[in-house]
């Protein structure tokens, strides 16, 4: 939401950090209430699915990392 308000919501690929950007979350936020036909709605929900997939993969990696590290600790103390 914060990015939606300040990011600029441009549809171009960015070439520098000073260009307006559009994040996946801000695309859903800004266009969902304007989506008039079902393919549009479905596409936006698909964007949500991709976003969900990315966060799941990242948190799975984080959990695996924590598990690996804590396992190492246990081995040291045993």
């Amino acid at each position: 939401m914060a990015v939606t308000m300040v990011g600029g919501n441009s549809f171009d690929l960015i070439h520098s950090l000073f260009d307006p950007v559009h994040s996946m979350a801000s695309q859903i936020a800004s266009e969902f209430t304007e989506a008039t036909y079902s393919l549009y709605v479905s596409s936006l929900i698909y964007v949500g699915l991709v976003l969900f997939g990315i966060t799941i993969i990242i948190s799975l990696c984080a959990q695996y990392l924590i598990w690996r590290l804590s396992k190492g600790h246990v081995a040291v103390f045993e």
Partner: protein
Amino acid sequence: MVTQHSAAERRHYQFRRATERLAGAGMVLCTAVTVFFLFMILGYVIYNGASAIDWNFLTGLPLPPGESGGGIANALVGSVLVVACAVLIAMPIGLGAAIFVNEFPSARLGRTVRFMAEVLTGVPSIVVGLFAYALVVRPMGSFSGLSGSIAYAFIMVPIILITSHEAFRLVPPSLREASLALGVPKWRTILGVVLPVSRTALLTGAVLAFSRALGEAAPMLFTAFGNPFWNLNLGKPIATVPMLIYTYATGPYDDWHQKAWAASFVLMMVVLVTSVMTRAFLRGKSHE
């Protein structure tokens, strides 16, 4: 006799002193930056928002753009209503799951649930909003406060689960064993010993979840939707403060921007007062 250090040793010592100073200065700098931005945000919101707050702002309804005055009373009441309903939904689920995870540690399902909760806390709130839209709004056929509560509940459940689980882990095993040794059944031990002992930490977790949800605008876009009029019916679209801030801040009118600042100020104060009051209440309890 004075110990003689070689030039190399002295240089090594000086190098280590310098590294230590540098690391220390770095940490102080990072802390200062964090605190600076916290006060920057607080100060900026107070500077821009406090001046627009009057009785009418807190008790009035939004007026059409162009007319001066008007307030956010409906959004304030709506936010409290939606979030309170979400707490009612999320608290039993989160607490129950936390009890299961803690009391049956050998169950594979319990560990999986805890793992899933940690993954769920990372899910973007907009995705939660989409989910609540597909789950509640589509079948019901209209935006509603209830769907907003369900979306907030999805955000709250993993937070309540994790904080409650951590609270239960801190209960001394001797208390539990003492209860079991008296022949008290397991369910009675949980209700009579584990829950009362950890009640302050449970309340802290609930307040954390409450504050987190109260400021969340993204799930409200497609669920509670917003409403310029009075509405206390959770089956109808309802105004919430974060949603109002989003609409007003991205809107084209100066008056709206001013109101968005003021609403941010009110929201911030509500969260601040809630957490301060909980702390004071808990401190009072712990002295009993």
